[in-house]
């Protein structure tokens, strides 16, 4: 456990370094902008992984938090003249408050929870169309300068902080509580895991991260309408990306998010039709669900274990390890005969 956490932290540090290098490379403003969007998407995937992966609550409502964060930051900058950082703070707080409304949904489980969150996100969009500032036609406000490196730095910084939070959560008591809740809610309850509190904390963290990236996303645009901020894509795409990468793993959302975004980008750049894109995405999802439910990270872990164990087998020195927690079979039968 500790060694896997250590390696994850090394990977996170390496990832942070990679992000810094990526940011300093001289590139056209367009490519820079796309990379920033990719990092924002990875951030959203990380946020979904907290509730969907760690806590095992299949939410399809992340768009609500993303959209609330986006509107919060946009309004803070546009109508109240706040700076970038305070605006992002507003986004985080508003998204977390929105998450409190979702807490009663924990009464529902599994598929019911999925539909419930989906419904709430849909309601959020309709309500925004009618009651959000600007209504259906949206709002304009001041965005980042086109060649500013600020959005990239904020996105990359956000991802690093979010990853650090995830590592911290997994190491804490909350992480173990979440694992218990994910595996068997009733069993977790019966051994005294405070499931409601644990799930609520995960939801708040997830919403806060989503709100941050929603706010950042809005600040890169300069224009926002309900269809953009609350698009169903913000609920579905992170879910799919995390499934692709590996649900409940630390690196899953990063890998899956980067690949998913890259895939969509490549499809647009190569001039494929949206139909081909849908077929490709659908086929990937079906393949993952049928053949590799633990995603890319899961497959990679399995392959690595296989490789490691094969080495051990070839040595001949180490016999294959006995099943954990059970004495070797010979000892058991031996004592049986003696008594």
């Amino acid at each position, binding site marked *: 456990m500790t060694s896997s956490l250590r390696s994850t932290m090394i990977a996170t540090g390496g990832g942070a370094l990679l992000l810094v290098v990526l940011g300093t490379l001289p590139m056209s403003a367009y490519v820079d902008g796309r990379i920033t969007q990719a990092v924002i998407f990875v951030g959203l995937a990380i946020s979904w992984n907290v509730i969907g992966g760690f806590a095992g609550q299949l939410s399809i409502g992340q768009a609500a938090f993303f959209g609330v964060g986006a509107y919060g930051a946009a309004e803070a900058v546009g109508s109240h003249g706040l700076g970038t950082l305070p605006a992002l703070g507003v986004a985080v707080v508003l998204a977390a408050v929105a998450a409190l409304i979702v807490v009663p949904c924990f009464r529902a489980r599994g*598929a*019911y929870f999925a539909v419930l969150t989906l*419904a709430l996100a849909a309601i959020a969009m*309709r309500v925004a169309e009618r009651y959000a500032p600007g209504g259906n036609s949206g709002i304009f406000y001041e965005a980042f300068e086109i060649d500013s490196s600020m959005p990239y730095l904020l996105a990359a910084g956000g991802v690093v902080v979010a990853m650090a939070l995830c590592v911290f959560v997994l190491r804490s008591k909350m992480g173990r509580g979440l694992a218990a809740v994910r595996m068997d809610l009733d069993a977790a309850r019966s051994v005294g895991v405070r499931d409601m509190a644990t799930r609520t904390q995960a939801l708040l963290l997830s919403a806060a991260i989503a709100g941050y990236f929603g706010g950042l996303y809005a600040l890169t645009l300069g224009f926002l309408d309900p269809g953009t901020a609350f698009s169903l894509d913000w609920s579905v795409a992170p879910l799919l990306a995390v499934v692709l990468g590996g649900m409940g793993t630390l690196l899953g959302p990063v890998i899956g998010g980067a690949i998913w975004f890259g895939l969509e980008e490549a499809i647009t750049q190569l001039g494929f039709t*949206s*139909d081909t894109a849908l*077929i490709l995405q659908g*086929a990937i999802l079906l393949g993952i669900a049928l053949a590799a439910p633990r995603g890319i990270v899961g497959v990679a872990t399995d392959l690595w274990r296989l490789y490691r164990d094969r080495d051990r087998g070839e040595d001949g020195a180490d016999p294959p390890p006995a099943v954990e927690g059970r004495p070797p079979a010979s000892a058991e039968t031996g004592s049986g005969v003696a008594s």
Partner: protein
Amino acid sequence: METFIQMSVLGLSNAAVYVLLGISVSLIFGVLGVLNFAQGDFMTLGAYVGYSAVTAIGLSIAASVVLIFPALIVVGVIFYFTVLRPMRNHQHEMVLVATFGTALLMQGLIGLAWGGDPLGIERITGAWRIDNVTIPHVALINIALAAIALFGLMITLNRTSLGRSVRATAQDRIGAQLAGVDTNRAELTAVVLSVALSGLAGLMILQRELLTPQVGFELVLKAFAVAIVAGLGRINGLLPAAIVIGLMESAVATYASESLATATVFLAVVLTLLIRPQGFGGSRVRV
């Protein structure tokens, strides 16, 4: 008063679509425990096949079912054997993801086959006028079709041995197996019934709006709404649930605004799940 009657007719006509889709969703959930995100896309496929039957082959709309049903049943059987059955013992999250993948795949394939531009056929435009109230024939046809389909389904589920095996499997899979029910066959039957009803809903959509590959996916959320308000896997409560939701939606759209109408449907879901998660379907007997 005229507005009210007008609105009710519209609401009931919507309810006809919802009840068919709701039953489709509920049948598969009842027997397999899977919330099928691809259900709306079966409906879309049905609508497109109907479109081709009318425009390319020249069949009448009513006759197009002879193509819609076989096409959908083939796709449904493929879906069952490649996705639903292999994933029967998988984590439910992954099954949801798989049906979602199926939905995307079908939307892509439909777009590839028929193109993404909105398509439509010549609609049945006739209507009765009583004073200031217009009652389109289509609305009545939809309501009648839904009623016939419901009646047929009830006969199948309650009076045939195959239908009874579906109900037994939905109630208690292992119990049904112990009593000698072929649960695999029951599952297949439920899937076939489900996609056939979706295809019928597609026929109604063809009369109602222009087709795009995404048309079903937008409707499937409403089908979920109806099925949840009735109680997932319960067929008994579906008709009243569909009528209530259809009327509610059309009332809010008439007297308030279109976008709030959709919000109301989802609000009904939220309230149902919070107040009475098992739905308002009444009896405890499922399917």
